[in-house]
């Protein structure tokens, strides 16, 4: 059995294990790029994987992946570690770096619009293809050259997250600013999203395929240039319908085909993710001792 098959088998076994050994809590991730004001519950650990695959016409197809460990430190503070990797067909499979992020919710009650402050440090290389955000003049041209991990990118990313819940809908807006700490200018981007469960009422029976377990929505995201060339010129933008399936007492599956909106964008990106929440992980360790 070759290495590729072994990896897929391992991934399948992991998902199967999560489904079989389901915990009580469930993850609530609906989007790939946009963040909402919903924080991780304190003491809970969410393990998620977000993958994106693209098919550039003049380059090699790729599969980017970010594995995410998200922990609720406080009700108003969530911290996350990402481990990124990518595989480009005909080239190589690489670990491309890590990201550490923290989200803080300054207002401790629910409001019409709920702000969250987001701080991230990234230590990745130029071969990274996880596309967790689109900023500056990012575009399909970045994916046409062979993967190069010699160029390090140590970057700081700031986001202002604004999010609201209204009549079952979640609407979220992110303003993104990112800076390569090697002296590059600030780059900007945006992400907008809305989603809604198919049913707002919970049924009494433990059904897997009830309408309440499905959410549909859409994301719109793209770059806004940099400090010296702010605007839409030479930027890329995507419109991405999204669907999420919250398996009761188990993982959440998300899928989002993104359509590029201009010639700088990828024609199509397919995103898919699995997330799983382990409730009160610290308490479990304490009880087991």
């Amino acid at each position: 059995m070759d290495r590729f098959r072994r990896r897929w088998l391992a991934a399948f076994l992991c998902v199967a294990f999560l489904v079989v050994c389901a915990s009580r809590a469930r993850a609530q991730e609906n989007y790939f790029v946009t963040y909402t004001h919903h924080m991780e519950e304190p003491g809970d650990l969410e393990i998620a994987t977000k993958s994106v695959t693209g098919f550039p016409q003049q380059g090699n197809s790729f599969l980017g992946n970010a594995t995410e460990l998200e922990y609720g430190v406080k009700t108003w503070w969530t911290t996350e570690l990402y481990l990124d990797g990518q595989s480009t067909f005909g080239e190589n499979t690489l670990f491309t770096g890590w990201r550490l992020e923290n989200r803080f919710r300054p207002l401790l009650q629910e409001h019409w619009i709920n702000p969250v402050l987001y701080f991230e440090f990234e230590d990745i290389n130029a071969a990274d293809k996880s596309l967790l955000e689109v900023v500056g003049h990012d575009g399909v041209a970045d994916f046409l050259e062979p993967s190069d991990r010699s160029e390090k990118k140590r970057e700081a990313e700031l986001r202002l997250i604004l999010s609201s819940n209204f009549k079952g809908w979640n609407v979220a807006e992110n303003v993104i600013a990112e800076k390569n700490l090697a002296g590059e200018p600030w780059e900007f981007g945006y992400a907008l999203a809305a989603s809604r469960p198919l049913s707002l009422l919970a049924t009494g029976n433990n059904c897997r395929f009830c309408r309440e377990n499905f959410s549909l929505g859409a994301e719109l995201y793209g770059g806004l240039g940099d400090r010296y060339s702010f605007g839409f010129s030479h930027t890329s933008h995507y419109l991405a319908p999204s669907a999420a399936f919250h398996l009761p007492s188990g993982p959440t599956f998300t899928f989002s085909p993104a359509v590029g909106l201009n010639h700088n964008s990828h024609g199509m990106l397919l995103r898919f993710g699995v997330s799983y929440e382990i409730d009160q992980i610290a308490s479990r360790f304490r009880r087991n001792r």
Partner: protein
Amino acid sequence: MRGRTPILAMWLALSATLLFAAIGDGAWMQRVPERDRLRPNPFADNFNAVSGGEKLFHQNCAQCHGSDASGRDKHPPLRSDRVRAATPGELYWLLTNGSMRNGMPSWSKLPEQQRWQIVSYLKTLN
């Protein structure tokens, strides 16, 4: 300096007692606006809403408050005089806003109808 140590210890003990008393005394109730306090539960006496609320409770609340709602670790029991005395509107407000300083998160990620279903279930426990 040594003479101040017992005073400092007493001050810390008193502060801690008052703090825990404030948390345990349901200080969040004081912050509920009057119009929210008086909101009626649209699913009162609806059996289907209660069974849905029970399912939601086990999916979202039981990991902290226990599957029988009797509390777990530092998380308070929900079979209590305080929950019994609280109006549906007060419980709904708590689910929506949380009591974030005390570790209770906001459950606004659940649709409004589902939060009322949980309130319906909590009322049947008491």
